[in-house]
């Protein structure tokens, strides 16, 4: 399907899928889901287009929210914030935007572009810049493909808006973060403006459909009484890493990030083993009995073993029965530039990245 509209069930599936792809972070998509449902209730339509529909000279602008999850929960958006950013950028380029794009496939930012698309009547491209969730603005495939984050626009609900032109994408992250604080802890950005020709190479294809498919697989498996996790692994080409009970969760607040680790004691065929997950907003590394079994940029997601529902890192706690899965990341992250940007060493783990499908053959199932 090259062009289609989203309905309420799709949105509900999408947020579940986005939580799976969010690898424990990316913010609770609850608010994002309600924003999209509100748009549909107001009679607006959300059109998704395949990346193949995008002309080489089409003007594409990814949009996203940034800031603190707790602020998003309290100061609910107006829904117009990102429109101010778009409008400002359109003025700067003196050109109308043709397509909206997500930058992130996981968490709350999977839904924000849909709201903007609905409000502006613009199609949203079925692609993104992460294929999962990451915490910083330069952690996108657009960045590793040489697209500049700026000129970018950053707005709040009052209509305050700023254009940034920075020397590199890391500075864009730093300055935008500072402005976000002034805005009251949340801000809405239009970033990595680009043209179809560049975008088609740089973006990760099919992320919106994938998130919907994941949510749908879980929902339908549950309805049919099948194992939801098997259905999930089929859709994502993922692997089961571990099954067990969380026996310890430790959290450290370092440098403003919610870092921590969770220890899971094996059940059933994993009895006698332990799996440790290290996280910083997202799950980053999984270590089974002192051996690394998965790491960023591959996706590591913790699911409730009964419902198959993904569990965010802030909700990990003693006693939960969980299933840990890992899914291969997009090939773009496996290049040297990709690993330099989001590999284990960028997050402070001195280990080599080995793709999950290789690791699984080596350690999980000998």
């Amino acid at each position, binding site marked *: 399907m090259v062009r289609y509209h989203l309905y309420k069930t799709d949105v509900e599936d999408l947020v579940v899928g986005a939580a799976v792809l969010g690898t424990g972070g990316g913010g609770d998509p609850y608010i994002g889901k309600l924003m999209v449902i509100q748009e549909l209730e107001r009679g607006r339509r959300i059109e998704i287009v395949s990346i193949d529909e995008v002309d080489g000279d089409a003007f594409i602008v990814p949009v996203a929210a940034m800031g603190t999850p707790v602020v998003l929960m309290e100061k609910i*958006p107006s829904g117009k914030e990102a429109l101010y950013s778009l409008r400002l950028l359109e003025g700067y380029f003196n050109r109308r935007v043709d397509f909206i794009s997500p930058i992130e496939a996981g968490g709350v930012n999977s839904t924000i572009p849909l709201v903007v698309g609905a409000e502006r009547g613009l199609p949203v491209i079925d692609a993104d810049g992460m294929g999962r969730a990451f915490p910083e603005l330069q952690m996108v495939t657009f960045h590793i493909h040489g697209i500049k984050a700026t000129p970018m626009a950053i707005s709040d609900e009052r209509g305050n808006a700023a254009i940034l032109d920075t020397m590199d994408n890391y500075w864009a992250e730093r300055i935008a973060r500072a402005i976000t604080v002034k805005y009251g802890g949340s801000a809405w950005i239009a970033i990595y403006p680009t043209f179809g020709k560049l975008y088609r190479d740089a973006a990760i294809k099919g992320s919106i459909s994938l998130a919907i498919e994941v949510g749908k697989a879980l929902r339908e498996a549950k309805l049919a009484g099948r194992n939801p996790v098997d259905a999930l692994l089929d859709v994502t080409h993922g692997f089961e890493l571990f099954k067990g009970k969380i026996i310890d969760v430790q959290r450290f607040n370092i440098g403003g990030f919610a870092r921590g680790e969770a220890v899971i004691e094996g059940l059933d065929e994993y009895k006698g083993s332990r799996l440790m997950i290290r996280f910083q907003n997202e799950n980053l590394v999984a270590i089974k009995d002192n051996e690394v079994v998965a790491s960023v940029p591959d996706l590591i997601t913790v699911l409730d073993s009964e419902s198959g529902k993904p569990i965010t890192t802030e909700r990990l706690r003693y*006693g939960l029965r969980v299933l840990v899965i890992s899914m291969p990341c997009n090939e773009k992250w496996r290049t040297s530039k990709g690993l330099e940007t989001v590999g284990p060493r960028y997050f402070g783990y001195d280990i080599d990245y080995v793709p999950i499908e290789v690791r699984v053959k080596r350690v999980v199932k000998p």
Partner: protein
Amino acid sequence: MTKYKVGIDVGSTHTDAVILDEGNNLIHAEKTMTTPDVTSGIINALRLVLEGSGVSRDDIAAVMFGTTHIINAIVQRRNLGKVGVVRIGLPATEAIEPMLDWPIDLRDSVNAGITMIRGGHDYTGEPITQFDEDSLRKALEAFRNRGVDAVAVTSVWSVVNPEHEVKVRELASELLPGVPIVLSHEISSIGLLERENATILNAASIKVMVNAINALREALRDMGLEHAKMFFAQNDGTTASADYIVRFPIFTVIAPISNSIRGAYVLTKIPNAIVADTGGATTNIGALISGYPREALEVEIGGVRTNIRAPDVIAIGLAGGSIVKVKDGDVKVGPVSVGYRLIYEGISWGGGTVTATDIALAKGIMSIDDPMCNPELARSKIPSWLVERAYAKMIEILEDSIDRIKLKPEPETVILVGGGSAMWPKTLRGAREVIRPEHAQYANAIGAATALVGAVVEKAYSYEQITRERAIQDASEEAKKRAVEAGADPSTVEVAEVEEIAMPYLPGNAVKVRVKAVGKLKL
């Protein structure tokens, strides 16, 4: 002269009543059936316990209710008040309108008009924009013309700065005299939609509470108890006067669950433990921390997401009346229950249904003081392999749930309470000790009767703008003031708990401070 207190707890099948003396010694207890209207069941229990105890009515100083009036009204969408909803926060918050994801039938029975106006604050306490008093005035006039029963007001970051919510109350006292105005910062904490939902549900429940209190007050008068003060159990294990609870009925919505947990503490004096309350159809497993129920982050009420303070419990469909079945060689216990029909349908009562109670009777774990109950029937009619397997299954489910409610792996004390709690063994996996205190079957009503008056205040501060000591002092004073409003004797009010929760990623050292103040009943 000795002063006595009556405690009444409404459960799904039974309504229990106890009379305690000043030293909290149990004088008398009664169990009756819960009635669909709740009130008549309470009156039956009250009458029975008064008659059975022989205590003079003049000596009853207080009657303390743990009731299900509010949860029933919300779940059944019955007799709820029509609420005018005010949200202050524009231009923010417009992306999600109030009550968007409510069940439609509940929204329809509550909603009397929604208005969203400019105002509200940032987490720093600075206004988002100028407060729009003109629009507020128009909205309140419209509510007046429509004849709303109550108004629910929620402003962005009112837990940091309640200024705009307070303005609504001021203006409404002039435009809508006599109409209750519920302000969200007095109901719950951070999370606008969850707090707004709780505020609207509270506003809708006021009418229900007024009617319940009037009916109960009349019943007290009929029984010669017009001098007795009325208190209502709150969700957090404390209690509050009728005058206070009529403003905050949502604080009673799941109080009976807390009554049992609190009652377990009163009966054992063990402040930190796991509590399993086994009734006829369900077992609720919760945790005691410093003598109060541990609280959950969010609670769904009647299909609506809220963040009111409520006990963190796991409810399992395994209790005294749970039906035992064998299917494809697998033994299942619950979640279907015969409930109060146990005494007709249970094997041991000559009925044809194998229940969890019959299994425990056959196993010789418990005995029941009821001439109609004959454990021999269970022993002879249920095959012993089924007794063993069903009992093993029951223990497995309970042990598993106990483990799930724990926050750390170390074994803990487990306290068993409730009418069905005799069916459990003396040892459990994960338990350091298993205690089933005397009067365990009345823990809920005892919890209601012995509760202290309490109030909780949650506010957010930036420790860069105010020192930690000042912030805690500010929250503590407010909590104490509210405890007095709730009916506590001012000379006894003290701070029971102070909790500080850092808000990650927010600059300025933003911290949520939560203070619980408690005091003795003012009688």
